[in-house]
């Protein structure tokens, strides 16, 4: 079974987001870029499964749609254990374009299973996995919190709004994972970092894909008003304010 993990590259989650003076794009100077945390968990779980004795998984690769400046972040995925990486050299404007480029990689390289994180930490689209599945005409599952692989089937847990389902499915399919699938992302070892340099990071040229949406402007949220402090000896005052001032009780 060949697994492809889709990774987006996002600002470190502690980043204070700022925009350029014209508010048309993000101020990227000084930003620390990381693998989208959910994609990183997806990769971690894929590697765990591949490393089990008698694993049916023969290959775990990562793919990123973006320009060359993402290569150091892709190297990290190789350093923690991915076998190879692909980067489609295009700055995609939206989820639809990303999914379109991904579908070409999946078809060309014959992957059986594609895993994406449920939400990217930047524009919070969480749409790429499902769009990709529709383009490929594959089965897909979202909100996956657990995943294991057998010879020709996978067992997954899907968290719907009010229930958890255990599902047996058959590749090819696309999984969109959420938290819970793996506990901690891996930290690359020195040996892993050295080894990553000899692993293939293939740059692919984009296919023509039409986008249907784009960000044209950004805005910072309005500043919050000052916090009203309440005497710890008098929580009754808080109750009174919540009822009569904020009208939420």
């Amino acid at each position: 079974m060949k697994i492809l993990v889709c990774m987006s590259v996002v600002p470190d989650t502690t980043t204070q987001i700022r925009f350029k003076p014209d508010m048309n794009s993000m101020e990227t100077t000084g930003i620390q870029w990381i693998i989208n945390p959910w994609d990183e968990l997806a990769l971690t779980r894929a590697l765990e499964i591949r490393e089990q004795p008698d694993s049916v998984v023969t290959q775990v690769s990562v793919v990123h749609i973006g320009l060359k400046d993402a290569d150091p972040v892709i190297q990290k995925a190789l350093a923690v254990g991915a076998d190879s990486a692909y980067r489609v050299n295009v700055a995609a404007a939206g989820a639809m374009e990303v999914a379109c480029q991904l579908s070409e990689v999946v078809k060309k390289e014959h992957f059986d299973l594609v895993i994406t994180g449920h939400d990217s930490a930047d524009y919070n689209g969480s749409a790429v996995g499902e769009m990709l599945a529709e383009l490929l005409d594959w089965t897909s599952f979202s909100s996956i919190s657990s995943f294991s692989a057998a010879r020709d089937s996978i067992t997954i847990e899907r968290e719907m709004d009010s229930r958890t389902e255990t599902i047996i499915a058959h590749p090819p399919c696309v999984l969109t994972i959420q938290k819970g699938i793996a506990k901690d992302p891996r930290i690359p070892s020195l040996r892993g970092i050295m080894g990553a340099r000899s692993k293939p990071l293939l740059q692919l040229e984009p296919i023509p894909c039409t986008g249907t949406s784009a960000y044209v402007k950004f805005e910072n949220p309005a500043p919050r008003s000052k916090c009203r402090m309440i005497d710890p000896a008098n929580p009754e005052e808080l109750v009174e304010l919540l009822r009569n001032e904020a009208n939420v009780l």
Partner: protein
Amino acid sequence: MSVLIYANHDAGKFSKSVLELASYAFALANQTGGQVTALVTGNPAGSELDKLGKYGVAKILLTPEPGGRAFDNRAYAAFMASAAQASGASCVLFSDGSISRAVAPRVAVRLQAGYVAGVIGLPDSIEPFKIRRSVFTGKAYGFVEITSPVKVMILARNSWQIAENPVTCTVENFVPEIAVPAAGFEVVKVEEQTGAIRLQDAEVVVSGGRGLKSGDNWKILEELAGSLGAAMACSRPVADEGWRPHQEHVGQTGKVIAPNLYFACGISGAIQHIGGISSSRVIVAINKDPEAPIFQFARYGIVGDLFQVLPVLTQAIKKLKSE
């Protein structure tokens, strides 16, 4: 513009978020001179269907549950796209949740439509179509321009006030003439979450952080939540330590919620946590550290020892509720 909404229901009952969606759809259709159609699957009672008319839905397309018993997002997407074409909708709307996240992007591909999730208000302009959404987990807003004739959008939770707009509502049986692919998977076990209030739907949420010191200390929080009829949540370190299940983790890498009232107890307020709660209407912070960043985001704050403050607060709320 004509608007199609997916009105999902839980055992025949429309949730608050569906009524928010219907109200939003009515406002959008009204602004642009169109009407609202709703796709309803399964067989809710007529009195429930009438509710949709009360909130502005002019036509209901009633269809059998697509794909049989198990939720099959492929079949739902095929039905929804077909309903969009049948009703001539140029805007297809979903309320936020695990079903819509699994279905809406597929519908967008089928209709070659632009897709926006996290919509928080009406479009800024129709020609060209520009709409505002929250990005970077609530840390900023982005304006998206959609260039395709059809738009697929997910309305963010708690972002639109329910408003009654009674219209005459007709119900039509709808059987799309499409081949739905066989499911190709099997649901072997289902665990229903019963009893507890669902975190994403909760009006009030009580959340605990590292300040509680141990998973054994959660009782004081549970009592506060009990007095308020609130759902329980926690910060990331708490879920990572295994003090609480990861389903309760709110924050940038956990659930993103928007309750009316959020109690952050013993939570310092790291920016990742704020990302998950910043759309809450009122945030109350209780923390022993007066410098904790959570106080910059809270409307009301108490600097003090949780183990002393919370029980007194719980009593005060119980007293108020019994009046």
